């Protein structure tokens, strides 16, 4: 009996071996390589390098540009995440109330998420272009503003506009997931609450929220990581400018690694980023575990 069990386990292991191999190669290898290189003077195109121990970390942590980028990154993540959740959540509640054509609206609203980021970046750059852009010019024609607004080059507008684009892009994912979670809430609980005289707000706070908060929690974890690490959209739209106002840590790391070709120092930036995100995730998961136990 025992030997049959062991054989079955070996067979199972053989089946998952290919997937494990791929995971090891795709996940572990880059992480281990980054950690290793972060302690070396590795150059992007030169073969020779030496161990420099913590020199790269010291150089990064004493660079004011790193801290400016880090603060911009925190601001970018918090504002993007907050508005994505608010918009996504409200859209999900609205679509959940629709009786007819729910799947049609769900499909329409998910469209921004389906676009590749290069398409989004170039489209928004074109829409917001300060000379020929559709939106700035229509605002002038409608008499809302006197001169063409410079959405991507103004010190006051560039960052909020990038956040707005990110919300437009990310909110649909929140909406679809929250909508799915909303549909799992037992309807009889709402009926019972109604019989007991609960207000819609009370039903929302005591029935809806407890049911969907774990899904929301996981979404927040995932979105935090994705938004914090997002590179392409910012790089393609503003390149981190104007005057470094939209430069986040991934763009800083890119400039160090591909611009200066200091792969060792760039690896140190990514390792620091990894440590920070792990700490944030640990905090999130602690809260999630608590919620799961309460549930």
């Amino acid at each position: 009996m025992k030997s049959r069990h062991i054989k079955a386990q070996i067979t199972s292991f053989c089946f998952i071996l290919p997937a494990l191999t791929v995971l090891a190669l795709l996940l572990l290898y880059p992480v281990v390589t980054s950690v290793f290189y972060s302690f070396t003077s590795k150059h992007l195109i030169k073969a020779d390098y030496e161990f420099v121990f913590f020199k790269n970390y010291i150089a990064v942590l004493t660079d004011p540009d790193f801290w400016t980028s880090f603060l911009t990154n925190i601001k970018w993540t918090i504002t993007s995440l907050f508005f994505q959740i608010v918009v996504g959540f409200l859209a999900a509640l609205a679509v959940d109330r629709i009786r007819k054509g729910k799947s049609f609206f769900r499909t329409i609203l998910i469209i921004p998420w389906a676009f590749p980021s290069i398409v989004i970046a170039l489209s928004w750059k074109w829409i917001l272009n300060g000379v020929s852009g559709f939106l700035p010019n229509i605002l002038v024609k409608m008499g809302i503003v006197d001169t063409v607004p410079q959405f991507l080059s103004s010190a006051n507008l560039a960052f909020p506009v990038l956040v707005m684009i990110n919300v437009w892009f990310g909110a649909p994912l929140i909406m679809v997931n929250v909508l799915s979670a909303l549909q799992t809430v037992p309807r009889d609980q709402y009926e019972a609450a109604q019989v007991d005289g609960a207000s819609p707000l009370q039903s929302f706070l005591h029935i809806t929220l407890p049911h969907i908060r774990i899904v929301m929690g996981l979404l927040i974890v995932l979105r935090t990581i994705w938004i914090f690490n997002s590179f392409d959209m910012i790089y393609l739209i503003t390149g981190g400018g104007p005057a470094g106002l939209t430069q986040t840590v991934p763009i800083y790391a890119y400039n160090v690694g591909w611009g200066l070709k200091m792969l060792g120092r760039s690896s140190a930036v990514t390792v620091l980023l990894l440590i920070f995100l792990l700490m944030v995730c640990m905090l999130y998961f602690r809260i999630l575990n608590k919620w799961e136990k309460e549930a």
Partner: protein
Amino acid sequence: MKKMKRIVSAVLACACAFSLFTGCGGKETTADQGNQGSQTGQTGGSTETTDELKGDIVFWHSFTQGPRMEKIQAAADEFMELHPGVNITIETFSWADFYTKWTTGLASGNVPDISSTVATQLVEMIDADAVIPVDDLIDEVGRDKFYENALREMTAEDGNCYGVPLYLNTEAMWYRKDLLEKYNLEVPQTWEQMYEAAKIITEGENGTVYGAAMPMGTNDMLATRWLHLYVRSAGETLITEDGKANLTSPTAIDGINYWVKIFKECSPADAINYNTLDEATLYYQGKLAFDFNTGFHISGVETNRPDLMEYIDCAPIPRVNEDDPVVGVETNTTPLVIWKNSEHPEICKEFIKFMYEEDRYVDFLLSVPVGMMSGIKGVTESEIYQSNETVQNFQHADEVLNQMLEGSTSIGMEYGPRAEAGLLTSQRVIEEMFQDIVMNDTPVEEAAKAAEDKLNDLFSTLG
């Protein structure tokens, strides 16, 4: 029976795992493709073999504009037909992707046999010991046929030449004849005249057309180029002979002040984020009166606004004073290089020589007429070249561009090929400096000093 099922399952699982590894083995696949390619070559027509060349080579290039891709492919097909044992695989990348591709590929050995490149990147390739000398090839084509400056930029400290100049691009001042006529303006000879003309046009056109644009995007190097044009026109350089950055000399400070003035009074504010494409698109759309670019502007306008073709022309780069001599400022050479990893440098050399056969070479140049300037002297005097419609329509532009060729070099290469030039154009220090001045009102001298120090710090990392 159950035991049998388990054995079969285990074998299948192992086969799956094994297939993962075999999937990564590309060498055999390449060989197969090579054989197929050779067979295609044989069945494609001529089977005449002139020698024993045999093998597969990979050619990376960044010729994405105009029908250049097709011309290169046609040349490769013809070469393969002539040498049935040879298979040439062509892969095309944008210039930006090409840089990422070769720098990352170098570590894994995934580099091509031949590629196109630019002078500043060639210095890095030589520094990384990634390419081989091609002096024998240059001698075979004829060393004296190539422009001296172009060859000088391909020559390393060891005296060897590592690139064969395929074509050249010279910067000139492009303008709109109709706009100058509308406002009774002459073609500017000096920077101050250009500013005055640009200001009149900007004010007159009230936001529909801008006089000039000062592009400062940190994902490109245009602000560096614009400042370089000013500084070089005054006879100075952004990198001194002893390899130091020069942003604080009186001429450089004047240049920075000049472009800040252009930005504030004549340029769209969005230009603070402009890259090459944004800047060029503005001119192509007819929304810019003056711009600095190469002959590629002709094909760009032709594609976007063919109705403007008769109104565009170019003039020499403005000078500081009208009596200063007209000098060529910036010419970028696009060479072909042979990578050290290549197993068949002999095929690469034969193919490059094949590319330089006159009719084929002229045909390639004419894929972007006037845009791609010949790397070889005298070729453009041929009847085929001169009878091209675009060449005939833009004879003045062609003359100006050829005039600008004399004495001009890539940015930072005035004293020969140097790695500092790569840092000057790739680190966006000058773009950040301009952004700092116009966004934060940082005094020009202070911003210039900080940028100069930053560049010198970067230069010191070269060792």
